């Protein structure tokens, strides 16, 4: 049933002929959210919404989602949230009802979904009726050339509520941009770190923890962060140049550095 639906109503086979990019666009534009998909699926059952089989509907939706993902359609989070909720509802509907279950019963959950769908259908139909009324400026017309009397709005200025809200929004936005300032941060540069490390590593005889090489005054935590980062990069750089070795005993453990002997390297090479 769901296969037929996907092919019939949603024309997925045709979508398969399209480029991947175009498919993605279609997937989002075709539906107005998960309830919309459920309504299309419900219509395929060809019964009144009040008589619909919720279990069948749930299964159809889950199949739809699986197929959509199979086609690598980009699904918004709303659709997946609904899928998760429906999968839960399905399990509750299939399992025997436990008396002391907390929260809603499976029947209540199903009724909730049904009520939600009924409400959305009602509003869709109401919207369609509204839009098909004789509308001013399209079907019926006010006086084309009113001579104009201003007694409704005595104010000398013509401002709409929308303009007022828009004006406020715009100036709030400008203000938020105007107040953006970036504070200067204390930085220990990579050059400084390289210079210091190359000088010190010669004096250190054996494996030494990286923090030992940090500059003297690192009380400012921001500055310390920067110094650690630069010193680590300096260590990597020296290791790349073959001037140092790095060792770490465990993940997130302290880093040890020591000088690498050139002669050793030459012998190995």
């Amino acid at each position, binding site marked *: 049933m769901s296969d037929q639906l996907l092919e019939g109503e949603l024309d997925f086979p045709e979508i398969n002929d399209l480029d991947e990019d175009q498919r993605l666009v279609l997937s989002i534009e075709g539906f107005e*959210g998960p309830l919309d998909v459920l309504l299309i699926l419900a219509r395929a059952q060809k019964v009144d919404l009040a008589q619909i089989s919720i279990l069948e509907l749930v299964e159809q939706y889950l199949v739809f989602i699986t197929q959509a993902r199979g086609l690598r359609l980009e699904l918004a989070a709303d659709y997946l949230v609904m899928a998760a909720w429906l999968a839960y509802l399905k399990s509750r509907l299939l399992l025997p009802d436990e008396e002391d279950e907390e929260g809603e019963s499976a029947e209540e959950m199903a009724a909730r979904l049904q*009520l939600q769908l009924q409400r959305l259908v009602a*509003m869709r139909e*109401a919207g*369609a009726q*509204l839009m098909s009324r*004789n509308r001013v400026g*399209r079907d019926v017309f006010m006086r084309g050339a009113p001579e104009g*009397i201003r007694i409704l709005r005595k104010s000398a200025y013509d401002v709409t*509520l929308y303009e007022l809200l828009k004006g406020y929004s715009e100036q709030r936005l400008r203000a938020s941009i105007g107040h953006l300032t970036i504070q200067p941060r204390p930085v220990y540069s990579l050059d400084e770190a390289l210079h210091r490390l190359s000088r010190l590593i010669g004096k250190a005889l054996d494996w030494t923890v990286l923090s030992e090489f940090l500059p003297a005054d690192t009380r400012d935590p921001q500055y310390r962060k920067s110094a650690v980062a630069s010193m680590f990069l300096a260590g990597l750089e020296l290791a790349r140049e073959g001037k140092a070795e790095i060792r770490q005993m465990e993940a997130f453990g302290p880093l040890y550095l020591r000088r690498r002997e050139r002669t050793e390297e030459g012998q190995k090479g």
Partner: protein
Amino acid sequence: MPDDTASEVSSINDESEHLRMVEALLFATDQPLSVEDIKERLPDDADVEAQIETIRRLYSGRGVNLVNAAGRWYFRTAPDLSFLLRKEVEDTRKLSRAGVETLAIIAYHQPVTRAEIEELRGVGLWRGTLDILLEAGWIKPMGRRRTPGRPVTYGTTPEFLVHFGLESVEDLPGVDELKAAGLLDSVDQALGRMQKEMAAAEKERLEKKAQLEMEIAAETMADEGEEE
């Protein structure tokens, strides 16, 4: 009153003069007028309500009709002539499906919050949707809901009524049926009602069952009595 003599009559008859004035005002205005708006312009002794009613009847079968929206009066062309006048101008503000649904929800459920609209549609509201309806002048903030966060509620404007040719939101198409069917209540309200009905039905079932058992017991006793 034959029209040919209207000008003669008007010059002697105050009422007819008042009628002309109301007619002129309603013809000239570019916005619907309230009875008060018209009264302000007319002599104190004028019965504005009666004149409006006369004009409404006078024009009821004509090419132009006098109609009411949100208590304000205005002339507009007769709806059955739309075939003659309809403008297929490119509707730059053609509403999307989401826009139509959102407008319907605001109209039928007002006052309604953004979160409630999203719940009814089962999907997040795209940012531009309310913006477009606000810009069209069809919706406006109505107040704040007394729930956490005090969210703003939205409702429709008099311009909305004029645009769709409605006297009031009570005249929205199908609103009575929707109300009667409980479709304008929230899902929670409807669920609560369903549970109450189910509980009542269950209670009735149990009572009937007890009644039946008592009857059976009585019959059995009677049978037993007969046997004795």
